[in-house]
């Protein structure tokens, strides 16, 4: 990126009209990927001068224990529901979860889920890191996930969405092919990097369960309705040029007892519709990159 410039120069303007057609396998119109965040939050992390880990004095009992619900209860309920309807996860992973609670990572790996890095912990932020420090978390991520799962990570979602001006260049240099940190499009798009080849994978802030429940204050059924509307629109538009729909989740939210059944209706709807390529983020990236015109 152009550090300090008003336009960071991340990508070219590529208007929605008249793009070369993106074709998904089997003539599907929309690639749907579900992205559970499998995270670990520390109760008393070191302080980053640019951002507090917890809004309250430590211990932030509710903040920490709400998120810990994910690993004791939520993940298992969410994973069962996804598996029942044929959805594999593409995991944004706090890689330290491999050390703390390997059972969760092993379960996801055994289900055929893909892993990409979401930093070491969701309580450690990139703000203010120098290049060596940032390289250390990328190298740690690659090594930790490889040792725990046998997978080589292909994507990145910055820990707690904290970046430095060099993050995208560095992950491309390490051979990663996609970033989930840019929200400017409904299709994969090339990102300008110093070396390597990086694309932006459509993720979503707006239909993230956290935004649904805690920014827009939706009821569980309102959130499910939102996802179905999002899906219907993208599936229809994707007939002309393939689209991508991401459903980013946190099991401490979506797998709460009052929410999981409403969400299950969304999975049923998409699975039954027939227009969706239900897949994983890395597969979308690979397919897109293999198509003509997907170069830098």
């Amino acid at each position, binding site marked *: 990126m152009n550090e300090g410039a008003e336009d960071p120069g991340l990508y070219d303007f590529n208007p929605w009209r008249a793009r070369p057609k993106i074709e998904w396998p089997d003539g599907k119109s929309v690639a749907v990927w579900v992205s559970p965040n499998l995270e670990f939050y520390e109760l*008393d992390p070191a302080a980053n001068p640019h951002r507090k880990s917890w809004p*309250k004095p*430590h211990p932030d009992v509710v903040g920490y224990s*709400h998120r810990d*619900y994910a690993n004791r*209860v939520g993940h298992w309920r969410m994973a069962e529901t996804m598996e029942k309807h044929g959805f594999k996860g593409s995991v944004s992973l706090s890689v330290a979860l491999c050390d703390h609670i390997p059972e969760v990572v092993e379960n996801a790996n055994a289900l055929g889920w893909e892993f990409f890095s979401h930093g070491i912990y969701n309580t450690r932020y990139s703000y203010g890191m120098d290049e060596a420090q940032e390289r250390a978390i990328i190298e740690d991520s690659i090594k930790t996930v490889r040792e725990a799962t046998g997978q080589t990570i292909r994507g990145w979602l910055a820990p707690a969405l904290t970046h430095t001006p060099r993050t995208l260049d560095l992950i491309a240099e390490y051979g990663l092919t996609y970033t989930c940190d840019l929200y400017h499009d409904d299709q994969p798009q090339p990102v300008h990097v110093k070396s390597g080849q990086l694309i932006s994978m459509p993720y979503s802030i707006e239909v993230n369960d956290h935004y649904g429940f805690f920014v827009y204050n939706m009821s569980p059924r309102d959130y499910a309705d939102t996802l179905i509307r999002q899906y219907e629109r993208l599936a229809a538009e994707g007939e002309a040029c393939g689209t991508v729909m991401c459903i980013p989740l946190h099991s401490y939210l979506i797998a*709460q007892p009052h929410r999981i059944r409403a969400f299950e209706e969304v999975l049923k709807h998409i699975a039954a519709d027939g227009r969706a390529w239900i897949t994983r983020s890395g597969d979308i990236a690979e397919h897109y990159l293999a198509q003509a015109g997907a170069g830098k």
Partner: protein
Amino acid sequence: MSLDPTYLEYKRRRRGMDQDLYPWSNINDRPPIAWPSGKGVAVALFVNLEWFPITPADKPFRAPGHMQTAYPDFRHYTAREYGTRIGFYRMLDAFATAGARATIAVNAAIAERYPSIIADIVAGGHEIVAHSTDMNGTIATGIDEDVERRLIQDSLDTLERVSGTRPRGWQSIARSQSWNTPRLLTEAGVTYMCDWVNDDLPYEMATPAGSIINVPVNHELSDRQIITVQQQSADSFAEQIRDAYALFADESVRGGRMLTIQLTPYVMGLPFRISALETLLEWLARQPQAWFASTGDIVDGIAGVRN
């Protein structure tokens, strides 16, 4: 630009949790719980009965729901009192109609000021949980250990003196604790606390003074969260509780589950909302797997199958 090098040291990166209070556990791997009632879902109605001084204290923090305008904030002071004088009685009647034993988390100041309300709670067969002294009795890191110890002691002593029974359970204001709270509660003889929200069943925590049970009272399934914070209707609140019940009833083939419903008299006890609660309780009372239980009943029901 660079961060302090220690920012990349992870001293607690290890197998298990990053603290020593409790071990990780998967709810599906624990020995299944059979509730004493033989039903699948223990339903805990959990009311917060609170007294807000019109002179709010901001140390260590101002309690949620506390005074908001310049002194004297008659609006919020009296609206909270409405809950205690009127709304709570509507709830007691609704519990009686449904045949429900509830849990009432009470500020000691309520017992001190309005002893007859404690007599009504006891006569209704409900359990009292200690809920600090009054809504200025907040706890967070930084509070002096002796001050916190005295606050816990005063709350328990007052509630015991007025109700005739020493509370076994505790809930902090806003669930906020200091690093010392679990130990101080254990030292004070409290059996269980209702602050941490990381499970659908109680589990055990270790403190230097011995162990204490934590009963996760789901903070999302509260009328304050759904109605006041998220601005949803009382009917939507009731629908979300019914959905949660249905999920737990199905999951109870794997072992007993626990549905907790936190209620606030000045929120749910209002005339235009109370019927949503009454209808919900009547519905729950008809469900074949529902067992109205206090948090103490639930703690007794999991004896021997913790963690």
